[in-house]
């Protein structure tokens, strides 16, 4: 049992912090926060300033740390990745490849696909919009209807995807589609990778409750925009298939588990804990000193402890991965605790600050750029996106505790 980092690892942490201090400004952060971008017609790929920043980070060897050198990575270990990621996430910059499609490509891609996509994903020259959810397939993703029909050397795609958040600026799409209508629902699915400028794709914005005013950097799920994406006779070559045809369900889940390991999941849920402590230390409202209220102090301490549990759950997952072990339920447990904690701390803060917590960014009298108000609209999203907390609890119960499946859900069992 060892809860400390080595001197070398601490030194690395200091280096990353120094780099961030020198190179990252709030203005730049707004630009790199591409997901939150509300510009409907921005060019695909990164803005020039963001590209310059990522180039600098790449040159320091801090992108794709755990990926093999052959594919443009650093051939480093996960703990190094974790430390670097923790610092960048805290600063509001995403350097991880979680949710990028890279883990699944590494697990199931052909050599050619790996050589084509991985270096680009690492350098952020390639970005994927994720095409999973559909109007009738959310938590029960295997119900998806978007179809890919073989036609000679091509597939022809028709259908609709929801919440394709990056679709308005990503260079490519990672699409899950049905290739066999007659197979059981988990067995007729395939994954395709192709450019977003392929003819027949239409992207329409879906504005979230975080839009107008847009959320400050550091908000938990501050995205003002996501999209719905339509595929109308989109013709792609068969080489766009990732893994085997009809094996897409397995390919998709290969990437998922490792995707969930990392610093960002817990960090996005605990930043308000730090904010509120630092806020009450130095702020008063005329005669009201929130930092002296016994009720507020008790709640702040309670939330801080929960935040520590989120941190420790992440450390546990890291320890398991470092030893080359496999999760049964630990990753899912993180994905229950951190999002739900994020909601609890966010809602607690609203009851400490009262009407001030209603104020959004750009409002007169807004505290800390309105982050507390925006977090009310964002923190609960963390319990919905990338596997809801309900589904995660199912996984803890079934995989971790080996509780039996319900006799009613034989066909629609949670994965």
């Amino acid at each position, binding site marked *: *049992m*060892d*809860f*400390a*980092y080595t001197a070398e*690892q601490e030194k690395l942490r200091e280096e990353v912090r120094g780099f961030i201090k020198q190179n990252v400004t709030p203005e730049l952060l707004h630009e790199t926060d591409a997901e939150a971008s509300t510009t409907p017609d921005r060019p695909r790929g990164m803005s020039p300033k963001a590209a310059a920043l990522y180039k600098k980070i790449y040159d320091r060897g801090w992108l794709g740390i755990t990926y093999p050198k052959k594919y443009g990575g650093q051939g480093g270990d996960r*703990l190094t990745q974790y430390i670097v990621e923790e610092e960048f996430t805290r600063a509001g910059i995403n350097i991880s490849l979680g949710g990028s499609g890279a883990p699944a490509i590494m697990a199931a891609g052909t050599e050619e696909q790996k050589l084509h996509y991985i270096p680009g994903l690492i350098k952020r020259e390639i970005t994927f919009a994720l095409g999973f959810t559909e109007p009738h397939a959310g938590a029960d993703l295997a119900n998806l209807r978007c179809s890919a029909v073989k036609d000679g050397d091509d597939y022809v795609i028709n259908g609709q995807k929801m919440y394709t958040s990056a679709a308005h600026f990503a260079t490519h799409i990672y699409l899950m589609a049905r290739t066999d209508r007659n197979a059981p629902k988990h067995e007729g699915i395939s994954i395709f990778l192709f450019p977003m400028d392929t003819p027949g794709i239409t992207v329409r914005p879906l504005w979230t409750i975080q839009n107008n005013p847009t959320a400050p950097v550091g908000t938990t799920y501050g995205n003002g925009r996501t999209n719905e994406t339509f595929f109308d006779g989109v013709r792609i070559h068969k080489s766009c298939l990732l893994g085997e045809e009809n094996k897409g369900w397995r390919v998709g889940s290969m990437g998922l588990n490792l995707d969930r390991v990392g610093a960002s999941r817990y960090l996005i849920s*605990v930043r308000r*804990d*730090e904010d509120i*402590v*630092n806020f*009450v*230390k130095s702020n008063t409202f005329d005669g009201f000193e929130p*930092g002296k209220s*016994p009720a507020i*102090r*008790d709640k*702040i*301490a*309670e939330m*801080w*402890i*929960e*935040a*520590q*549990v989120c*941190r*420790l*759950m992440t*450390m*546990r997952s*890291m*320890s*398991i991965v*470092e*030893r080359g072990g496999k999760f049964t*339920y630990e990753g899912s*447990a993180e994905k*229950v*605790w951190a999002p739900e904690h994020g909601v609890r701390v966010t809602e607690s803060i609203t009851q400490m600050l009262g009407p001030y917590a209603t104020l959004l960014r750009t409002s007169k009298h807004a505290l800390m750029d309105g982050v507390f108000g925006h977090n009310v609209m964002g923190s609960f999203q963390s319990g919905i996106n990338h596997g809801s907390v*309900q589904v995660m*609890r*199912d996984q*803890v*119960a*079934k995989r*971790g*505790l*080996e*509780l*039996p*499946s*319900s*006799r009613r859900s034989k066909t629609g069992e949670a994965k």
Partner: protein
Amino acid sequence: MDILLNDDENLIVDSAREFLTNECPTKLVRAMEVDAVGYSKELWAKVAELGWQGMCMPEKVGGSNMSLVFLGLVMREVGRAIAPIPLHSTAVATLAVARDGTEQQQEKYLPDVVAGKSVWTWAFTEKDPRFLPDAVQMSAKADGDNFVLDGTKLFVDNFPAADYCLVVARTTAGSKGEKGLSLFIVDAKSAGISHTVLITLAKDKQSEVVFKGVKVPKANVIGAVGGGWPIVERMLDRGTALLCAQMVGAARKDIEMAIEYAKFRTAFGQPIGAFQSVQHNCADMQMWVDGGEMLTFEALWKIDQGLPAKMEVSQAKSFCNEKCEAAVRQSQSIHGGIGFMMEFDLQLWFRRVSAWTMRMGTAYEHRARIAHLLIDYPGEVTLGRPLPAAATA
């Protein structure tokens, strides 16, 4: 960083679990609930052979000088087996002797402790149940080579079994707060001591102990006269973290029983564990106990490293108090009526875990300490990094 157990740690856990599975059936636990002294002398002697009493004692007194994390793992197993042995009270008191006592005190008392020949306890609480220096009123007046102790202590653990008791008292008349407190090694059979065993939820031995003109040699003071608070605070922190270890061990076993029960108990044509509401309850119980366990062992590890650990100890106790209670209560709920029948074993764990959540500091007390460390010192806080308070605390 690797917060999982290493091979040595796993070895200790496995051997302790195997030993207690064989030596500590619930029949023994039940027998000790109605026993006047409340512990198994036979089991106490056997655990001494395994070296548990001497685990963190220095080698010069026969101990094995291991870290608190190891003792914590053993306490976790003792909690898992709800073993009726006075290991916690003995460890709390004797670790204070080992860490802050004089050479003479260590040589005089600790070899017997390591050999399993003596049982120790400690007495802090009086009428005011809080673990704050102000709660101590008991007076100790200097009289020649002795101090004379007068006052009443409450909730003294295992007193009927104890040979020695560490007692916190005020050596400066009229003093308040941290100043003027001293810690004494008191022979539990001294003239002037009487006690009454209280009737508790856990059916364990918690006593009111009355001191009337009890003479204690000056040589029995641990640390400086009037300067006992830092020693007492460290003693309480170690004890609190070890109690958490015991609590998570017991809570873990308790929820395992509920999870197993849910797998075979059928209702409405299927195992109740197939119902999603039961599954989600079980998932929560697992995560609560996991959380308490990680907080606890981080606290013990920090104490071992000589790092500031007040924050971590209070985090662990506050969390365990609320979440272990919730876990064992939910476990009762999953069992239905059978869970609270005396003849069914589950209640043995439920009553103990519940009682332990109420000892050594409530959630509110511990959170007040956390809030103080977080808020009352200047400088920004960042989760997972040393607090600005650490520089001054």
